[in-house]
Structures are given as structure tokens and as C-alpha cells.
């Protein structure tokens, strides 16, 4: 009973927050509403029993997108200092019909899903049964790597494409623009980095390792590692550079290349493509994907193709 009330409060706040995010007059208020919506969304995933998604939401929402929006807001104010950063202009007349139509469609789909017989698809049951025999205890990692390998591979390819597109449109003068916090050298920030940076690395490795039997995996681990990189960029311990470095380039493509090579090697052995030879391959691919995801997200955040380390006395 209380659970249903809780769910209803979460749903109502999610809808109200979503409306506020897109319709708020003040841009900064919209950003804060977006951040709070991320928090509420994590609670919703928790209530739905999906800790994997809650974890991804926490790592991406708290670590990357919130900071990204703050930095974008700041850039917007600096580019157009004489322009009010609030949203102006009237709302389109189509806004209300589209919103009502979309809401109705979602409601109809949800109603259909709840009313239909909860008969699970045969393929899903078969997969879950087959996964019992595998060494992977976490069905999500199992499905992502063993059954939907091509999808996972293409997701990594999408991330790489997004990075290449971002690099293609980055202008050289944008690199001079600093996205660091105002006083990156106060003692408190140093102490924070000394605790949080090793901890994020530890947690991401733990999530990667736990991903084989518990909620976690390459994406969550990569996002946590990316948050660590964002922290370093914000505090100007690491900053954008136009000089390309082979190690960074290798890190960006590591996930895609190792997954494709191991997947294609299966064809040489006469197995179907993307068949993995064993647990070592799972760990190897997951580690490479984690590094690629983390590096790509940090580079996208910094808006650059390469990074350099800053020395601090």
C-alpha cells in the first residue's frame, strides 16, 4: 500500500520536474530541475528493481551531465553578456497538442502493457535458462556480451562516431577557453581530489569486476571513471591540448578494436561471429570498453581531442 503511494509520488514529481525542465523561464532553474529529475529517476529505477540503470543514472547524471550543463550555461553567459540567458520568445501553438498526444500515447502503451497477459516470451526464458550455465551470474552483462554482442559493439561505435563528430566541429580557439572552476588551488580542493580520485578508480574497478555477477559492468565503471576525469578537468589538473597523443588515441579505440578482433577471431575457429572464447575474453573486452567509454566521455566534456597534464607545485 505504502509502496504504491511512494511510486505515485515519484511519478508525479517526475512529470512535474520534466515540465519544469523544458518550460521554466530561467535557464539555470531548468538546469537544477534537470539535476533533481536525475535524482528522482534514480529512485524510480530503484523502485523498479533495476539497480544497473540507477547506477548508470547516478554516474552519468551526478558526474558528467550536471557539470556539462553548468559549464555550457557559463559559456552561454560569457559569449552573450548583453543577452539575458533566460528563455524568451513565445511558446509554439503546437506545444500543448503534441504534449497531450505524446502523454496519451505513453499512457496507452503502459495500459496495454499492464493489461496484457504477463506471458514471458519464449526466447527470454530460454536465454535466462541458458545463462544459468554460464559463468556470468549477472544476466544483464550476459545478454549484452553473449547474446547482443553486435548491439553492444555498435554502441561503442556510436560513441566513437560522436567523439569524431565533436572533434570535427571543435574550433582551435575553443581550446583556449578554460572550463575550470574559479579557484582550483584552494587547499580544500586538493584534499577533495586526494580522497575522491583514488576512490573513483577503486569503485570503477570494483563495478567492472562485480559486473560479471552483480549489478555493474563496463558502462557504469566507465562512467565513474569519466566522472573522475571530469573532476580533474574542472580543477585544471588536466587540461585540453591540441597535440595528439598516441596513447589517448589508442585508449579511445581500444574497446571497439578488442571487441571486434575477438569477435571476428571466432569466425576463424568456425564459430558464429561475436562468439566469445571464454571468461578471459569477457574481462578483457569489458576492461577495454571501460577505458574507451571513460576517455571518450572526458574528451567530449573537455571539448578536445587530446589532454595534457598540468604541473602543480
Amino acid at each position, binding site marked *: 500500500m*505504502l*509502496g504504491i*503511494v*511512494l511510486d505515485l*509520488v515519484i511519478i508525479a*514529481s517526475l512529470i512535474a520536474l520534466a515540465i*519544469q525542465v523544458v518550460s521554466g523561464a*530561467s535557464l*539555470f*532553474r531548468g538546469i*537544477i*530541475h534537470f*539535476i*533533481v529529475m536525475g*535524482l528522482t529517476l*534514480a*529512485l524510480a529505477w*530503484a*523502485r523498479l*528493481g533495476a*539497480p*544497473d540503470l*540507477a*547506477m548508470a543514472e*547516478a*554516474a552519468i547524471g*551526478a*558526474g558528467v551531465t*550536471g*557539470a556539462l550543463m*553548468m*559549464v555550457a550555461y*557559463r559559456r552561454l*553567459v*560569457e559569449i552573450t*553578456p*548583453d*543577452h*539575458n*540567458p*533566460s528563455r524568451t520568445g513565445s511558446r509554439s501553438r503546437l506545444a500543448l497538442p503534441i504534449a497531450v498526444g505524446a502523454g496519451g500515447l505513453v499512457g496507452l502503451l503502459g495500459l496495454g502493457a499492464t493489461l496484457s497477459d504477463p506471458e514471458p516470451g519464449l526466447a527470454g526464458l530460454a536465454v535466462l535458462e541458458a545463462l544459468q550455465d554460464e559463468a556470468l551470474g549477472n544476466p544483464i552483462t550476459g545478454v549484452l556480451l553473449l547474446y547482443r554482442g553486435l548491439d553492444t559493439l555498435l554502441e561503442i561505435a556510436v560513441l566513437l562516431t560522436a567523439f569524431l563528430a565533436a572533434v570535427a566541429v571543435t574550433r582551435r580557439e575553443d581550446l583556449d577557453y578554460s*572550463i*575550470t*572552476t*574559479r*579557484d582550483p588551488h584552494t587547499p580544500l*580542493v586538493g584534499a*577533495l581530489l586526494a580522497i*575522491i580520485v583514488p576512490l*573513483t578508480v577503486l*569503485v570503477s574497478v570494483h563495478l567492472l569486476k562485480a559486473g560479471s555477477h*552483480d*549489478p*555493474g559492468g563496463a558502462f557504469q565503471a566507465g562512467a*565513474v571513471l569519466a*566522472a573522475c576525469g*571530469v*573532476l580533474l578537468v*574542472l*580543477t585544471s589538473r588536466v587540461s585540453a591540448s591540441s597535440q595528439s597523443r598516441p596513447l589517448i588515441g589508442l585508449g579511445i579505440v581500444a574497446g571497439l578494436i578488442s571487441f571486434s578482433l575477438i569477435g571476428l577471431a571466432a569466425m576463424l575457429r568456425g564459430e558464429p561471429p561475436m562468439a566469445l572464447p571464454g571468461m578471459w575474453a569477457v574481462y578483457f573486452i569489458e576492461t577495454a570498453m571501460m577505458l574507451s567509454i571513460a576517455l571518450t566521455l572526458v574528451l567530449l566534456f573537455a571539448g578536445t581531442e587530446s589532454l595534457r597534464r598540468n604541473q602543480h607545485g
Partner: protein
Amino acid sequence: MIDVALPAIVLFLLLNLVAGMIRVYRGPTLADRMLAALLFSTTTVASLLILAEWMAIPALRNVALLFVMLASILSLAFTGLPDRHDDEAGDS
């Protein structure tokens, strides 16, 4: 008894969050809105911890850990915001 108390406390925390949204809505300064977001972050952490106990999903504790570990990134990004907006000092 405790099985009723845990969701009730989560509900209470969530209602606190909803009430706190008034501060985000009103502002008036950027810092006020940011403060409210930070309060909601710890409220969510507490709710996730209680949900982990109630729903018996230990992985939710890891989610709470992630939130609390990464909370300071947001305030670091916030501190870089410019001092003033030139044309809006008067319209508060």
C-alpha cells in the same frame, strides 16, 4: 512494524524533497538553487539506503555511494559560474 516504517520514512523524505522544490522555484540567487539541489542529493542518498534495506537490493547501496562520491563535482562546476549578469541586476 519495521516493514511499514521504512517505506513511510522514504515517503516522508520524498515529501521533504517536494517541499524543498519551492526554494528552487523561488531562488532568488543561483546559490540558493544550488543549495537546494545539494540537499536533494543527500535526501536521495538516504532514500536509496532505506530502499536497499526494505527491498533487499544491496546494489542500491552502491548507487547511493556513487551519488555521494560524485556530489562535489557539481558544486565545483557551479563555482566557475560568472559573477554577474550585466543586464539583469535590476529585475529581481
